[in-house]
């Protein structure tokens, strides 16, 4: 097998032989299970948990395979492989999700072992993408690049991945378990709506430590994660997490799926009692077995390598001239490009949200193009964001124009990162077996209504998030405008919420009023935006205006016709 040479793709964790053997053994194990299922030796009841452990669901039209993209970081080579799988085994496209993973919607059970085998060739798998285990740890899509970064969260996300994979105690938790980690002075990973949200930071002496939020989550009962400890030293990182999981494993409810998440436990025990339980467990665990030695952290960090940045200066002349000569490019830079910690570089968001498009979908051709661009301009690596976009994190500023020209020519240059067109939407009733209503057509209609990039920029930061049912895969609770599909006697209706916030100032949105039809929803969004624009003070974001003027004027306008 031709594996990635260590350090070839700077900033991407490289597997060793132990990692590879483990993944390959799992593929062979699953191959045997699939054979036994196809021959009728295993019943569906016996097989279902086994396929779910390998990320394979049955959806409306076919099987869906959810492939893990650990903390959202991919190599160009891996993306090319995903493109190839999309073409060979699916229908020529893939769907990037809010958990920084990739889903294929048209998979055949009988092809799955071959697909997993091909994934293993590029050090990828579908483990822990389903089931009651610790799921893919998510993080900032600008990790290792953002100017505001204090700690590189990838290193600790990888440590957690290794710690939790196959951990005997954590393979059968009461329910799925989601961890997000941030190492910047901003929250780009929605950490307080995760089971555990971790903030990595440094003290005055420069040592790394962690703040733990526990018990957040969306779904049927949304909760905001509670602060249970402000500073856990680096060496206790694993011990503290293990303590949390043990308390959860011991007290979490297994009798009722709706009450099984840690958010319910934290809520029912109370923050104080829960914290006390964790602290007691932590005191028992703390010791050599759980100590995270600095050498281990260094070794993991080393295996990520580091891009060989050149010594450059910010705002080179050619970049400034390109912006001056081309207003469309200038707009894309203003909206989709973020400052980099290294002078002369930038992080570019590739929007997978063209006006009228399907959020998060990318064709095999687009994936190949982006892989080539990552090789040419970003050290052969890229990221998936929880907003269902892709990111090239280390682009020379003087290469941005070339990059944009290639993206623009292939429908990937939409300047809408963080704007009203950058809609998060789950697959909804078009694909999902659990859905009440469709999500994608609404996202398409709203983004088409607000297609004008100048208008989007005028409206400014405004997140619309859409879920097709209460499971909230589309994060609607934390959308500045959230949309939830509901079923009313067999018809699709949509409930609008406003005021949600996924950042550290986390807020769950409030329901604006009665659910409306799809067409009415698009008009309602337009009305909400108009009320905002006519009420906002200079420089005020949508959620700030909403906070200041309250729901009244919005509600009035949206339901005026009723």
């Amino acid at each position: 097998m031709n594996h990635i040479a260590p350090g070839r793709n700077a900033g991407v964790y490289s597997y060793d032989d132990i990692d590879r053997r483990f993944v390959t053994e799992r593929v062979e194990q699953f191959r045997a299970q699939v054979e036994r299922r196809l021959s009728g030796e295993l019943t569906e009841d016996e097989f279902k948990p086994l396929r779910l452990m390998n990320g394979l669901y049955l959806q409306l039209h076919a099987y869906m395979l959810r492939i893990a993209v650990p903390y959202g970081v991919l190599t160009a080579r891996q993306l090319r492989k995903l493109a190839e799988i999309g073409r060979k085994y699916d229908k020529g496209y893939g769907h990037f999700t809010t958990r920084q993973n990739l889903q294929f919607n048209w998979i055949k059970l009988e092809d799955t072992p071959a697909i997993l085998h091909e994934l293993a060739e590029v050090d990828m798998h579908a483990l822990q993408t389903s089931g009651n285990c610790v799921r893919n740890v998510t993080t900032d899509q600008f990790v290792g690049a953002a100017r505001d970064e204090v700690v590189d969260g990838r290193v600790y996300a990888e440590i957690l991945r290794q710690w939790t994979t196959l951990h005997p105690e954590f393979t059968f938790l009461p329910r799925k378990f989601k961890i997000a980690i941030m190492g910047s002075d901003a929250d780009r990973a929605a950490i307080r709506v995760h089971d555990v949200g971790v903030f990595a930071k440094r003290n005055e002496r420069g040592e790394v430590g962690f703040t733990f939020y526990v018990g957040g989550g969306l779904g049927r009962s949304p909760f905001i994660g509670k602060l249970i400890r402000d500073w856990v030293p680096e060496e206790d990182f694993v011990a503290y997490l293990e303590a949390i999981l043990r308390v959860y494993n011991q007290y979490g409810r297994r009798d009722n799926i709706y009450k099984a998440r840690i958010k319910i436990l934290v809520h029912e025990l109370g923050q104080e009692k829960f914290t006390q339980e964790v602290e007691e467990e932590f005191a028992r665990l703390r010791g050599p077995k759980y100590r995270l030695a600095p050498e281990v952290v260094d070794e993991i960090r080393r295996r990520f390598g580091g891009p060989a940045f050149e010594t450059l200066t910010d705002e080179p002349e050619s970049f400034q001239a390109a912006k001056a000569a081309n207003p469309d490019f200038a707009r894309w830079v203003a909206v989709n490009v973020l400052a980099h910690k290294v002078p002369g570089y930038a992080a570019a968001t590739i929007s997978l949200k063209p006006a009228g498009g399907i959020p998060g979908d990318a064709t095999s051709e687009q994936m190949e193009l982006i892989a080539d661009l990552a090789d040419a301009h970003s050290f052969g690596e890229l990221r998936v964001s929880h907003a269902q976009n892709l990111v090239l994190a280390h682009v020379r500023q003087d290469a941005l124009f070339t990059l944009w020209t290639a993206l623009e020519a292939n429908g990937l240059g939409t300047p809408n990162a963080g704007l009203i067109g950058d809609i998060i939407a789950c697959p909804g009733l078009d694909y999902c077996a659990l859905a009440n209503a469709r999500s994608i057509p609404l996202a398409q209609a709203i983004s088409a209504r607000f297609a004008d990039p100048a208008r989007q920029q005028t409206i400014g930061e405004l997140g619309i998030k859409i879920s097709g049912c209460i499971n909230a895969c589309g994060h609607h609770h934390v959308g500045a405008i959230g949309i939830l599909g509901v079923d009313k006697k067999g018809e699709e209706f949509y409930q609008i919420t406003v005021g949600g916030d996924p950042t550290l100032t986390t807020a769950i949105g409030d329901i604006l009023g009665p659910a409306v039809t799809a067409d009415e929803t698009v008009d309602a969004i337009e009305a909400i935006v108009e009320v905002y624009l006519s009420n906002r003070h200079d420089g005020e974001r949508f959620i700030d205006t909403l906070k200041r003027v309250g729901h009244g004027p919005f509600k009035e306008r949206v339901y005026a016709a009723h």
Partner: protein
Amino acid sequence: MALNDKSRNEAALKAITANRLRDGEVIFLAPGPNLGWVERLDDAALFEDAAAADTALAAAKAQAEDEQFAVDVYAFDLRVTDGQRVPVKTRERIRALGPTVRIDLGKQAAA
């Protein structure tokens, strides 16, 4: 496909569906005594009375259990409007045709 179908109170027929085990394809029970399966709703058996549908469903489930070739076997409601078979629920219409957002995919693509 209208977003919301107002005529769903008309008398409904039933058909029986499942996903094929080896590839997940949506399949329907075919007419005739042999418990055959077809890929298109147009070729499926329709049941006018509930008791007949229940009997067929039980037989189809037993067969799927026995031979392990299909999963999630169940019956659903549909109507025939202007000669077209239209499932009552949007979910079943989408299963029978394909995603409404990609009419180039699913069974509708080959129509």
